[in-house]
């Protein structure tokens, strides 16, 4: 393997893991938004309620370190149909007394949250490991004394 000029791979790791953690944090934020708005209906009769949001990640070349990093490409909305409940007294109820509720499924959001958490922790582990590798390298200076 020929040595390559450029950024130090060990410091690259914390940057990559940091980007991963940032992306997962964004995902968790969207999950929190979805859960918070799980029952947010429209304000006028027949109005559309809150629409579930989703996150799309993409692998992008980080030019500063010259390695494939991750970033949030876009926040899209879920086009799944809304659930409908019969509640004529509700301000958002239409002429038939039906209220449109958000297409948020709490179970799906919870599993999404768990997955984001897991990926976040994996990134954190990598960061810790990189740190111990850097410490081991610096400790070489101490080994003689």
């Amino acid at each position, binding site marked *: 393997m020929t040595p390559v000029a450029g*950024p130090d*791979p060990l410091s690259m*790791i914390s940057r*990559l893991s940091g980007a*991963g953690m940032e992306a997962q944090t964004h995902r968790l934020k969207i999950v929190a938004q979805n859960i918070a708005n799980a029952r947010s209906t429209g304000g006028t009769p027949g109005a559309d309620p809150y629409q579930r949001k989703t996150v799309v990640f993409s692998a992008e070349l980080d030019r500063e370190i010259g390695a494939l*990093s991750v970033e949030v490409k876009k926040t899209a909305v879920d086009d799944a149909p809304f659930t409908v409940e019969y509640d004529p007294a509700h301000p958002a109820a239409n002429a038939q007394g039906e209220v449109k509720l958000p297409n948020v499924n709490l179970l799906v959001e919870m599993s999404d949250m768990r997955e984001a958490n897991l990926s976040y922790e*994996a990134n954190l582990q*990598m960061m810790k490991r990189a740190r111990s590798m850097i410490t081991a390298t610096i400790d*070489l200076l101490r*080994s003689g004394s």
Partner: protein
Amino acid sequence: MTVGNVTAVGNAPLYVTELAARRAEWAGIRQAAIAGNIANANTPQYKTRDIAAFEADYARTRLNLERHDPRHMQLGAVEMHAEKVREGNAWDVTHSANTVSLDEELMKADETGRHHTLATSVMGAFHRMLLSSVSSQ
């Protein structure tokens, strides 16, 4: 003196340090590739990448991109050495065509970390030997 499949030239004792340094560098690059995989663990279409196994001999050379203008794109060590893992070798392929398995990556990270510890320990040990031979009364 023979280290692995490498025969040292003459009796140069510092060759071990050179070998250990290369090994540590390889471990660093591989760890960065693994960090990239983990960061992209939920990216659709992302294919797991890995670094070729450590080779102590100089026989295998790679073509490196030449930069003769600062505006040229600079590729880091990871991009230089990264290889896609063939789909059949990946542990897990999700519906979004992502082939990163967090378990596998963390296992590889642990293995690479061990290689790095070994390399730095060897370097430290030889450094201490060198120092003790120089400083003994």
